[in-house]
């Protein structure tokens, strides 16, 4: 810990106005404190705020294309006013529609729920909960954010070029994504998408390696691995998944870049496009899908695991009970992390994959349902006979469990290759992954924000707004995505922008309108949250006690507004696991308290 940054002046200034608006460090300028900061807490906030901005953009895109899906035959002149040729005649053009869908997927999966979620909470919580002054390498950590920022800039720039951003779906399958002649979105926009994602991979590798080495090497005295809160374990496995799988995506994308610009044939073979015969022979379009999903599947767990970790923590704290089956929770996280690498081809059952190989992936996929089931039952048992406080964070955690159950169960449909023949690439898939990955992880993230906001900013979010936000979002999520399963069962393909010309798929007009209206309401509710967030940073109710939730973990032993270095004196020593809630008649026993002589064992 040679790179400790705590100066004596800083410590005193904290003592003086620890409750005051932003403590001013002696030697720090605005730039080093808020922009090129190496403090993990500031970097976490940077990730969070960038993630929120991206979430607004990505969510707004979904409102736009829902407009098309709900009202395919109506004109909205405002679209032309706002977007010019993309909204020609008040209609969303197909080019625009597919660009919106692609960007919506890319933004929410990578920029919001990868960077915005694990970027935020790994940075904020790892040093605070393991008892370290900062990350193993604060400098690389800072670079991690700025690479993400750069990736964001490149992606944004693709919105403003004349051929528009990538439009082949967030999975960017070649040959569509490789051939500029095949689609406008496969022109310059696609190159920018690849460059942006490459930068993003760099960012997440820098971050991930840092998280792993910090957790392994910088735990405070007494903090053995089995005394780590489950948040940390979840963030650890998340980082491992990212470090092992992002490079594969990276190489897949580089080969795609070569195919696009250097005339190679990794993914291209036997192609006649727009009347033009291409020379490429011998490539395999399916190879890309293997490379993509080797990241793509772990990616859904990269999104989900941090949410699971935070939910475990929040459920336990607010039930005033230990998390049930800590070792089983840990074991199932481990099992999920391993199996996540062994199921990627379940996205490819109908690509012509060898049926025997397919059957192996069916087995492995349904195997992953077992650790997921264990987690659900353990969460339920954690609630059982608790003394539950419904903070907004707790409500979001409960909502997470509900959504994870609903979405997890439909995974059993899709993982079974026989059923997947019918359901693959239908709206059923859209419903499934939104519930289990999209909305559930969002709920995990909200739980985290409401719970740790006091630690981040020394103020509370407004509770009433929090409750309104929660109830609209929970009800809305189910109203939007539950009926979509039915459309999927009817075989309605995903990425169709207008079903009215189809005899088999035109029976859901009313439903589509309804879903669009609900989606808009839900989006407005998110703006309410955004408002609450920024308002409360400056005007929220002040946190007056060091440990407002009565929690055991180390972050609540720091000052209300910790400076760079987190603890003012020595880093506290840890004597027990983090879940001694309600033990021996005591509401909670912090990790820093030594085990008493007569204390009961668990």
């Amino acid at each position: 810990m040679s790179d400790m940054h705590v100066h004596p002046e800083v410590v005193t200034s904290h003592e003086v106005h620890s409750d005051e608006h932003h403590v001013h460090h002696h030697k720090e300028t605005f730039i080093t404190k808020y922009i090129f900061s190496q403090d993990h807490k500031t970097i976490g906030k940077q990730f969070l705020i960038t993630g929120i901005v991206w979430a607004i953009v990505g969510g707004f895109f979904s409102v736009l294309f829902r407009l098309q899906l709900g009202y395919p035959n109506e004109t909205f002149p405002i679209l032309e006013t706002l977007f010019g040729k993309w909204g020609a005649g008040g209609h969303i053009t197909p080019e625009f529609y597919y660009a919106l869908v692609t960007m919506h997927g890319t933004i929410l999966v990578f920029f919001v729920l990868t960077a915005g979620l694990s970027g935020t909470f790994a940075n904020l919580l790892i040093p605070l909960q393991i008892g370290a002054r900062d990350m193993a390498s604060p400098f690389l950590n800072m670079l991690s954010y700025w690479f993400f920022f750069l990736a964001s800039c490149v992606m944004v720039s693709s919105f403003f070029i004349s051929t528009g951003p990538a439009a082949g779906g967030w999975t960017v399958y070649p040959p569509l994504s490789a051939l500029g002649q095949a689609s406008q979105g496969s022109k310059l926009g696609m190159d920018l998408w690849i460059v942006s994602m490459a930068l993003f991979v760099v960012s997440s590798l820098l971050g991930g390696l840092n998280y792993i080495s910090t957790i392994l090497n910088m735990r405070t005295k007494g903090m053995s691995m089995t005394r780590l809160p489950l948040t940390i374990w979840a963030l650890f496995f998340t980082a491992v998944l990212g470090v092992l799988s992002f490079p594969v995506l990276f190489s897949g994308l580089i080969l795609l870049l070569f195919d696009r610009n250097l005339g190679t044939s990794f993914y291209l073979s036997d192609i006649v496009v727009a009347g033009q015969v291409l020379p490429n022979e011998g490539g395999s379009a399916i190879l890309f899908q293997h490379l993509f999903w080797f990241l793509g599947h772990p990616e859904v767990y990269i999104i989900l695991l941090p949410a699971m970790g935070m939910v475990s923590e929040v459920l336990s704290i607010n039930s005033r009970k230990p998390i049930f089956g800590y070792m089983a929770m840990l074991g199932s996280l481990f099992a999920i992390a391993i199996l996540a690498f062994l199921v990627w081809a379940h996205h490819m059952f109908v690509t012509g994959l060898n049926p025997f190989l397919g059957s192996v992936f069916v087995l492995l996929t349904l195997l992953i349902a077992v650790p997921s089931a264990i987690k659900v039952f353990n969460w339920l048992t954690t609630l059982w006979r608790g003394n539950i406080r419904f903070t907004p964070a707790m409500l979001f955690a409960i909502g997470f469990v509900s959504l994870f159950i609903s979405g997890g169960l439909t995974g059993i449909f899709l993982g079974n290759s026989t059923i997947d023949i019918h359901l693959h690439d239908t709206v059923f898939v859209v419903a499934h992954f939104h519930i289990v990955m999209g909305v559930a992880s969002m709920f995990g993230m909200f739980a985290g924000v409401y719970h740790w906001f006091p630690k981040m900013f020394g103020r509370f979010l407004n509770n009433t707004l929090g409750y309104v936000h929660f109830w609209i979002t929970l009800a809305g999520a189910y109203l939007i995505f539950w009926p979509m399963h039915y459309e999927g069962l009817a075989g309605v393909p995903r990425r169709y922008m207008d079903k009215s010309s189809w005899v088999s798929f035109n029976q859901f007009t009313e439903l589509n309108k309804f879903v669009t209206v609900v989606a808009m309401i839900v989006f407005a509710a998110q703006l309410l949250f955004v408002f609450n967030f920024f308002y409360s940073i400056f005007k929220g109710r002040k946190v007056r006690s060091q440990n407002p939730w009565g929690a055991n973990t180390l972050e609540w032993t720091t000052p209300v507004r910790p400076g760079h270095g987190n603890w003012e004196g020595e880093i506290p020593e840890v004597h027990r696991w983090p879940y001694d809630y309600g033990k021996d008649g005591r509401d909670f026993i912090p990790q820093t308290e030594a085990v008493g002589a007569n204390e009961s064992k668990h």
Partner: protein
Amino acid sequence: MQAFFIVAILLLAFLIIFQIAKASEYVAVLRGEDKVRKQTNKINGFMLLSFLVLGLVGVFYCNEQLKGRILGTPASDHGVLIDRMLYITIAITFIVFLITQVLLFWFSYKYQESDNRKAFYYPHNNKLELIWTVIPAITLTVLVGFGLFYWFGITGNAPKNAMEVEIVGSQFKWEFRYPGHDGPDGKGVFGKKYYKEIDEGKMNPLGQLWDDPANYDDIYVSGEAMHLVVNKPVKLIIGAKDVIHDVGLVHFRMKMDAVPGTPTTMWFTPTKTSKQMIEETKNPDFVYEISCDQMCGTGHTGMRGTIIVETQEEFDAWMATKKPQYLVANPGKDTKAAPQDTSVVKPVAAIIK
């Protein structure tokens, strides 16, 4: 103007909610934060229980509204198996769904904070955990067992008597080819193709190699429905010219990607003629549709093909109206040359076999 109103109303709603929220914070301070917190806790506990009840009513209502608009009866032999598997899975998962959601919301309501209760310190119980590892494992094994049994049947080899039809996707249409009758025992053989020969101007949209005699009697069909024979297995040979497409046959419950450079196949037996389906669905507009299920560009939504399933006689009558593409593309050639050449080739093929 309308947009302006909507924005104005939204802003107003925001403002009101925000004012209420802020006021409630002050009220909390005035009335004692702890007291207000406990009251809010009760309200939210009650809301969770109501959400469960309303949610389950909603699930039931949604099912009543929509169940008539999904599946219908499957129109292929594989479809029957897939639907059966689907309904078994729906039944099992719905039971699990009910139990777990009820427990989740019930526990939340029942064990909400109360001054009279102490949380029960209960960190683990190995027996319980073992039980809920084993039960899902067994259930999933059963589902996988069923699933794979069907899967191997569906993806296994097509029966010997299956007819073969080639289907080729390109932005944004479907084209078909029938192999004629030039093989042994009257089944057709597809002539060779090479993608660099594809040339619509030369009437060779699939890139058939005209020096392969097997191409002489191959029938090319586009701009109309694919015709299939009821109760006769059909094996589709699937290809694509430009990007990946997908042959989605919703009524047959079948689906397979069309990948440029890598041909794929799938087979099934249509069990109902188009006319039967019109009667059964009471929809005079009913038609078997081929939907492209893989994102393929801006026209993806409209990449529609159709299929007519009919009796053997009707099929033969339709086929009799068709002329081999060889003759269309090579009008100078002696029309007799084609059958003649095939008769020369036939014995050779027979010897090789």
